[in-house]
């Protein structure tokens, strides 16, 4: 579980929901781990049990908040050696991407980053003449999003995967569900040496960008052409009450800040309307927005891949199209 100021992160709750369904298929327990300060864990049980958690492992120590790598690594590795879980899911957040590889290296188990889908299935290794039952298929776009790879981890446990926020759906299983809480003695897991890294300053701001929950998103790609042209998108977003998103190519080109990136390595969104401006539509972008109810693509290239999943395709220059949309909307909406 990832916890900031006592609140469990959405991505962790999304993974509990996914974990609950995987545990159902495998007929095993769903267990959750939370390691943080006493204050941060005060309201943990009421936040996680409704998602169907059978066992909640707690590690309370004021030195565990805010997160640092080494003590959390010792906790996870120690607990995994004891409990031998089949699967470990983590948010592909800054913390998960710091902790996951360290734990996987320590345990010699494989880790797949930024999965967009997780399924249970069998695998036959013809060369070795072995059949594996009930493996975790870790499915993710690869190679800059040009292909989709199905990764498995046949021999090592746990099978570890990280998933971005918003990719899985968060759903309460039973508001009155009560699992068992196990409080561990932190000193049994963590050495004093694990606290060698000290945080001497920390500024966290609430993100000003709220793309994830915005019903309308105006998103721009490399085809927007420049930072200046992105202003057009902001103007349209402003009149529609929308948020501005971007493809990775636009972020890499410096047109727009990273926190607006939609896609496998950014944010996954499902708005009512997604207006894609000058976005060609690499898989890794489409993975993050294909569940939008209505997709409008504005592109001067009629063969842009994104057009195939769009409900409306406007072939033309955004500099011509967007001002017309703004003008019509201002004139005709209440």
């Amino acid at each position: 579980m990832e916890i900031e100021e006592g609140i469990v992160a959405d991505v962790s709750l999304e993974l509990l929901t996914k974990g609950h369904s995987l545990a159902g298929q495998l007929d095993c327990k769903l267990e959750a781990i939370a390691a943080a300060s006493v204050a941060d864990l005060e309201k943990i049980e009421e936040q996680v049990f409704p998602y169907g958690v059978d066992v909640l492992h707690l590690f309370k120590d004021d030195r565990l908040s805010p997160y640092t790598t080494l003590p959390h690594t010792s906790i996870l590795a120690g607990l995994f050696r004891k409990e031998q879980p089949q699967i470990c899911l983590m948010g592909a957040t800054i913390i998960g991407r710091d902790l996951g590889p360290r734990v996987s290296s320590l345990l010699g188990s494989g880790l797949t980053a930024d999965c967009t889908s997780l399924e249970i299935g069998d695998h036959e290794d013809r060369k070795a003449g072995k059949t594996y039952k009930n493996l975790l298929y870790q499915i993710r776009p690869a190679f800059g999003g040009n292909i989709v790879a199905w990764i498995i981890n046949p021999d090592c446990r746990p099978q570890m995967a990280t998933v971005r926020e918003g990719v899985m759906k968060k759903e309460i299983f039973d508001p009155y569900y009560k699992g068992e809480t196990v409080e561990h003695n932190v000193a049994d897991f963590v050495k004093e040496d694990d606290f060698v890294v000290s945080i001497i300053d920390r500024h966290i701001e609430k993100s000003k960008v709220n793309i994830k929950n915005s019903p309308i998103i105006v998103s721009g790609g490399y085809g927007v052409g420049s930072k200046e042209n992105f202003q057009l998108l902001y103007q349209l977003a402003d009149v529609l009450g929308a948020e501005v998103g971007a493809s990775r190519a636009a972020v890499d080109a410096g047109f727009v800040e990273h926190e607006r990136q939609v896609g496998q390595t950014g944010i996954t969104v499902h708005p009512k309307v997604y207006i894609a401006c000058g976005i060609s539509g690499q898989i890794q972008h489409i993975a993050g927005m294909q569940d939008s109810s209505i997709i409008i693509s504005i592109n001067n290239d009629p063969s842009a891949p994104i057009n195939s999943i769009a409900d409306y395709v406007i072939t033309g220059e955004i500099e011509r199209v967007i001002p017309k949309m703004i003008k019509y909307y201002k004139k005709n909406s209440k």
Partner: protein
Amino acid sequence: MAFNIIVLAKQVPDTRNVGKDAMKADGTVNRAALPAIFNPEDLNAMEQALDIKDRFPGSKITVLTMGPGRAAEILREGLFRGTDDGVLLTDRAFAGADTLATSYALSMAVRKIGKFDIIVSGRQAIDGDTAQVGPQVAEKLGIPQITYAENIEKIENGKITVKRRLANGVEVVECPLPVVITVNGSARACRPRNAKLLLKYKHAKTITERQAENIDYIDIYSSRPYLNLTEWSVDDVEADKEQCGLSGSPTKVKKIENVVFQAKESRQLTDDDVDIEELMKELIDSHTIG
């Protein structure tokens, strides 16, 4: 004070500029159609190393890369910008490595290099985007890690102070040396090549490259030893072959799919006023917007 710094860098296919011929008809990647580049965040990392060398004269920077023979280009790019040495780790036994097997091989090469205070690398490589190799190398070496670094603020009394870029803010951490630091793309861009160094190291080559060269060039490598780029095999770094490459990789690729989107029946519009107005009217009337 002077420090020994190792830069972990990777040559990657430029997945950001994937053309239409980048995928073969069978859905596999046509690597030949993709230009090979210096992984962008590894350049940010190298700049942090060069900056330490500026601040602490006498510091030594070694660039370590793993890859096929042509990855020696990465080492030259380092020398052109002011690094001191380069090591290419190359062997068929490394092929097919996942992040864990890669980290094992790199950690063995780091041990062979021997003396180091700071290892820097990019946060992630653009061909995999996993961000796993840095932390895994740190774990294999049994030293702390600082990920998502934006700037190395200071090094004092055996401790390094680093600013990290988090999702919604910044964090400044202090850590004893040695340490592995992975550097974010938001860090300072790498300095350009230096013209003098470019001339000096233009002919820096690995042994494999030299063997393929014209014989006339051969004697310059004995008179100018700095032109010899180190090349190590799996045996040179005393790595256990079982832990390298495909056999050392716990994750396996079950299958690769070419993605087929669920195509929708799209309405085709032009950018004429009448088309745009009709679309906007429809969206407003259906309360989709407004």
